[in-house]
């Protein structure tokens, strides 16, 4: 039967074979069309330019190449937000190692730091990305598993709680840097762990490695309104991130490397947040490390954080009303 077909329609192609091959080809074509159909929704901005594709690693770029990259990023930002940013690559200062200290007996959990950080660092508003997480803790316990970051009472502080903001601890032995397969993240000489957003492949190993849950992933294109854009930008910190890369707190290095305080310190209404150069014996943080009761979070994991929590000698909180203190005292005396 197949021999007869062969004789009629020439060698190698039977009628049945023709239909079969056409069907296979049509299925294959349709499957490819279905597979690439999401491309219909892709905007031209999603395609990396050749310039970006060929850009070198941050540490391998010459100053001229860095300038080219900065020009490209500034162009992209201007195209997207219609705002010309003042974009730079601020280098670490010599003889400076940044350290952060946070007074947990003063923090009232108002979350001002969270939103000042979002504004300063051009974080995505939808989906929301926040570097700082304020944990509401039970008084008398430091068990993170009983903490809550969704608290929403009419006013803070609540009577039976204290608050522990957590952000990147800028560890001296950062596990996130160790796990990065492409060396897209590293520790700078001033102690800040940074990410080259153009080198990151988005594998999220660092997010898994961080014991403080300080790294954030851009699952979607970060969205923020042009009016909310902070035009004071730096390559390693707050320039708009692309989709699919990690980001994290950089102690606002575009501010701190020119001597300014980070946004979270500037906004804190209680003055719980302290920042400075630990190598300077006259700095606030040096005084805290020498004179205050200081602890680090998850000391046992051996990451040597540069973020210290401290508390005041009295142990209680001054912002509570005098009445509640009296009530406690009289209750204690009555027992």
């Amino acid at each position: 039967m197949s021999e007869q077909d062969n004789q009629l329609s020439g060698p190698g192609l039977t009628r049945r074979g023709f239909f079969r091959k056409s069907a296979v080809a049509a299925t294959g074509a349709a499957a490819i069309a279905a597979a690439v159909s999401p491309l219909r929704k892709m905007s031209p901005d999603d395609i990396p330019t050749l310039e970006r594709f060929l850009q070198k690693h941050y540490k391998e770029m010459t100053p001229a190449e860095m300038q080219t990259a900065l020009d490209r990023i500034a162009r992209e930002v201007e195209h997207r937000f219609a705002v010309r940013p003042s974009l730079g690559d601020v280098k670490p200062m010599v003889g400076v190692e940044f350290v952060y200290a946070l007074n947990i007996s003063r923090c009232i959990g108002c979350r001002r730091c969270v939103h000042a950080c979002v504004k300063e660092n051009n974080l995505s508003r939808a989906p929301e990305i926040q570097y700082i997480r304020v944990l509401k803790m039970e008084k008398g316990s430091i068990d993170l598993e009983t903490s809550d970051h969704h608290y929403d009472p009419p006013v803070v502080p609540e009577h039976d709680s204290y608050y522990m903001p957590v952000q990147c601890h800028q560890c001296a032995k950062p596990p996130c840097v160790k796990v990065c397969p492409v060396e897209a993240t590293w520790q700078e000489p001033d102690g800040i762990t940074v990410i080259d957003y153009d080198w990151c492949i988005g594998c999220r190993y660092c997010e898994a490695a961080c014991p403080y849950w300080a790294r954030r992933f851009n699952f979607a294109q970060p969205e923020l309104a042009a009016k909310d854009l902070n035009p004071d930008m730096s390559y390693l910190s707050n320039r708009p991130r692309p989709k699919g890369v990690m980001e994290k707190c950089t102690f606002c290095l575009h501010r701190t490397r020119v001597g300014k305080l980070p946004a979270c310190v500037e906004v804190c209404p209680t003055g719980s947040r302290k920042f400075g150069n630990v190598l300077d014996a006259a700095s606030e943080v040096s005084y805290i490390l020498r004179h205050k009761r200081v602890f680090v979070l998850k000391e046992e994991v051996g990451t040597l954080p540069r973020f210290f929590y401290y508390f005041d000698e009295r142990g209680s909180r001054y912002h509570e009303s005098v009445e509640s203190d009296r009530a406690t005292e009289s209750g204690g005396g009555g027992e």
Partner: protein
Amino acid sequence: MSRTGSTSTLPSDPPRRWQAWFVPFVLIALTGLLLADPWPHVSPVGPAAVVPASATDMTPVRRPILKPETVVAGMTYRCSECHNLFPSPVETDRPLTQHRAIVLEHGINARCFNCHNRENRDAFADDRGGPIPFDQPPLLCAKCHGPVYRDWAHGVHGRTNGYWNPKLGPMERRKCVECHDPHNPAFKPMRPAPGPNTLRMGDRRSEAEGRSETKNPLLIYRQRLPGGDGDEAKPQRHRR
């Protein structure tokens, strides 16, 4: 291919081909269906949260008047200009006719002249009755709050704004009265800014919709415990 081989396999061939022919058409139909996007992707991303401007306001919570003056009918008067006309009692613990708006809630420090200078009404009083200028309230507060004053002087208590390095720019240590009302010094509670609504930290709205547990990686272990969610599964050691 040998003739004997083809003839021997021929009887079993047609049913197999009959089974196979519709597969491409099913796939093509499925492809067409998927291209039509019958179940469009719904993003889990909610709208951007509304953040009040106060949440990013960097000014101190109070704007104290470091040079108190009273303006009456366009004329500006210093404190002493009234108090010289109307002498005060030797000691008083509450305003009798004037300054009724001032509510003194400063613990056991309930007398005006503990802080205000009775002799020089345009100044505060130091320990020996001498004047402390109105624009230097930390010196007054230091009379009682020694440890806090020490911390403040080292920049450890209270706000610092501006530059962390005074050599590069102005470093401003906020004064006591920029956060504390001297007549009612407890730091005032405030409305917290909106909480996280992120993909991983969970959705604020889930609580409003009555779902028992917001997405919180730290609380996952509670859901696994036999008690179900929430307080019942909370470890006993954290109970008081």
